[in-house]
Each structure stands twice: as C-alpha cells, then as structure tokens.
C-alpha cells in the first residue's frame, strides 16, 4: 500500500502536478531559487550565491554580499545564501534572500537576534510565524523554515499584500 502510494506520488511529481510553483535549486547549495513573485515582475539581478570564506560559492563569500554585517550570520552558523531581485515596469522591486544556517536551531537563533531582525516588528502568519517590518516606503518580512532564514523585501509598501502572499508561497511551496 505504502509502495503504491509512493509510486503514484512519484508519477504525479514527474508530471509536475504537485510542483506548483516549479522550484529550481542550485546544485551547489541545494538552496531553492525563488520563483517570480507575480505578474509583471522579472528577474532584475541574480540569482547570486554566496558561501563562507572557506567555502565560497559562484559569487564569492558572504562578505562580498553584505561585508561586515555578514559576521553576525557567520556567528550563527551561516553556510550559504541565495540572493535575487525582481523588478517590474513601475520601479517596484522585490528582494529575496534565503540563508542556509546549517540547522533549524541556528536559523531560529538568527531570527531571534536583533542584529538581524530588529525590534519594532509586527507578527504575521504566513502559514507559519513571521516578523513584518514597515519602514515607509519599505516593507519586509523575515521568517524561518527548517534550516533556512528567509528575508523578503519590497521597496513599495503598497505591495505589502503581494509580498506577504509571496512570502507565504516561499514558506509553504518552495521550502
């Protein structure tokens, strides 16, 4: 019975019926490449992959990405990050960073660190708990799923609903 179930599941996955949205991953890191956030958006920059100084990835290490601020992530066990920016014709841009923190405990500790996620947030639910920030005109969300800390940002808070829905997609369908 169990084998039959797995066979059916594999067949469905093969047909792409369960994979919505289609999730590409980086072979080097296993990190997913976030899908297009919505109509009108295309990839503006990236995806870029950064590792540690010892194990840099194709775009280098975390200090090439966020320089000194990277130390805080390193201290929490950082392994890799995928960074991507989407933009539309109206100069709206959505940034997504998915950090691989090695394990769930590290990811949660990073999430709790005010150097990463400062105070002043509002808790929201995107299928799981998330911290949302509104610093006009920016709106961004942090959440943890497994070993990953995820940051989603939009430069126009009028699109905060879209961003929240997109974060939920990443949390529930991508990771």
């Amino acid at each position, binding site marked *: 019975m169990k084998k039959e179930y797995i066979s059916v599941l594999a067949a469905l996955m093969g047909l792409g019926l369960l994979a919505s949205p289609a999730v590409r991953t980086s072979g080097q890191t296993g990190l997913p490449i976030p899908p297009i956030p919505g109509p009108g958006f295309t990839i503006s920059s990236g995806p870029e992959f950064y590792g540690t100084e010892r194990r840099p990835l194709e775009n280098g290490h975390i*200090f090439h990405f966020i*320089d000194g601020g990277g130390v805080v992530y390193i201290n929490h066990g950082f392994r890799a990050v995928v960074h991507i920016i989407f933009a539309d014709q109206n100069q709206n841009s959505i940034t997504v960073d998915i950090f691989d923190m090695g394990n769930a405990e590290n990811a949660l500790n990073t999430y709790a660190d005010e150097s990463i996620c400062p105070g002043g947030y509002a808790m929201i639910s995107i299928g799981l708990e998330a911290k949302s920030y509104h610093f*006009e*005109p920016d709106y961004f969300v942090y959440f943890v799923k497994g070993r990953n800390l995820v940051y989603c940002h939009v*430069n126009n808070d009028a699109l905060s609903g879209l961003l929240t829905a997109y974060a939920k997609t990443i949390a529930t369908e991508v990771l």
Partner: protein
Amino acid sequence: MIRIKKRNMFFKVVIFAALTAVLLEGRPAASAVQTAPKSKVVTVRSPNAVNSRNQCQPLEVKAMLDQGLLALTGKTSIREAWTALGLTPADIVGIKINCNSWTIKLSPHPELVAALTESLSSVVPLNNIIFYDMTKSDLKDGGFTRNTSSVGPRFLANDADAGYDEQERLTRIVTSTCTKLINLASLKTVDTTYGNKTLAVSLFFKNHVGSLIADDAPKSHGDFDFIAAVLAKPSIRKKTILNLCDGLRGTYKRGVPWYWAGIVLGVDPVASEYAAFQVINEKRIQEKEKPFEMPPYLLIAEKKYGLGTCDPANIDWVRLER
C-alpha cells in the same frame, strides 16, 4: 669701555635668544597655536529635500549641495568652490559610492548623484566623472546603470572595469584612472560585534574598504588600525578632495531607518566622520537608545596616521538649516 659693555650685553641677548629657541624647539609659536585653522565640517539639512517615502526633491538637494560647498570653502560660486578644493579642468574625479543594499537600502540617492555630477561639471567634462563601487551587481542593486562609454558620467565596477594595483592593494580606478577622489558615504549604522570589538557605524572610513582588493575587505572586521590605514593609503590620502555623506535617509540602529534629510561635507575625513557619527548619536539619544562610544579608529587615524582630527575643540562644525 662703554662699547665693550654694549658688546657684552649684545652677546647676552644673543645667547638668551639662542637658549630660548633651543628650549622651544619643536613647539609651535604661541601665535601659531592661536591661529591654527580648525577642521571645517558643514552639515546642511532641509525638511523639503526628502519626504517620508524616500522621494527627493532634486532642486532642493542641489541647493543643499551648493550651499554646503560654498559654506565649506567660503567661496561665492560653485566653480570657485571646486577650484578651492583643488579640482582642475584636466582632473578625472572618482567618486566612491556605497551601494550596499542589505536590509534597508542606503545607496546614494540618485538626486544627490545627479546634483554632484552637475556641480562637478562646472569644472570637469562629464566623462571625467566616475562613480564606482566594488561589483557590477552592487551598482545594479544600487539602482545605477554601468556606463563605461565615453559619453556622460561613467559608472564603473572594480570587479569588471579596472583590476587592482597590487602595491597599494586598491582598485586601479583609485590608483591609476582618477586624479582626484570624492568619498560619498551613506549614513549607516552597522552595530556589529567582532569578538569584543564593536563597529558602530559605516561612514567614510568603511566606505573606502570597498576600494580595496575584494579579498582584503574582511581584514577590516574588528581591526580598527586596518580601517584607519585604508584612508592613509597614498592614493586615497593624496587625491581625496571632499568627503560627502548622504544623510537624506540613514539608519540609527542596524536596519532601522530615519529621514535626517541632510548631508555632511568636509575635507578632513576624521572630522567629517566625527560629525556624521555624532548625527547618528544625536538621533539615538532622541530615540532613547544608548549612544555609541567614539569609534577607536578615529583616534588611530588622528594620532597614528595624521589624517585629521576627531577632537571637537579642533572642529569647526557649521550647521545649516534650510
């Protein structure tokens, strides 16, 4: 006899003068101490320059820059002001920008970049103006289009357009291409701890870490002497004519922005950094956050490298409000 007495008196006076000169050797004359010029720093603020949605008024930003340059130099025209700062028509000016877009985007405002370009073009051709940062993606994330052409101001990336000078371990944009430099920093709080050392802010000193060979940049983490030494590198030290901080929007806590709606200008990088740092601390006090202690690299920059002063008694801070 009288002549002899006079001669003895003359010798006594000469000997006294010589002894006095020896005793005072190495000390500046009293009059020199009294008239030693202070390092001038100008801050210009305008509530009309930027709104709460980070949208700038180009004309107001330009007016702020003009007013700041004139106040800094004491001149009456922009062209005279740049000339007083050492700019000549043949110069190629490199402007180090900080496009770090992590969390809160604090890349320089395009309106300030445009105002600076227009201002500089009163002396140098547009194509002799080069804005640069570490990587192509930094420029793109900062909202700037790379331009390596011979038309208009250039936007270059260290990793793609220049290569590095192995001796100074700097981008060749600094060592070879440019004859003058402007340090265009952001008003940024990083509050990052390296072991037992905390780096509170990322201003003029940290900005030029992005002029280094990329693999040298992490050496600045927790090494305050290294940070101070970056601005003491010969090409940066000799060529820099202005330090300009975009404080239209800044962060006073890591990742938490506010609209200070101002700019900071100075020739002395240490004094300029001191003033910008104080701007952040003033906001922290206002928000009931603990103020930062003065960054240790400022004293190192002053005492060891002689780059300027962080002693408020030696800084003439002109605060302008529009």
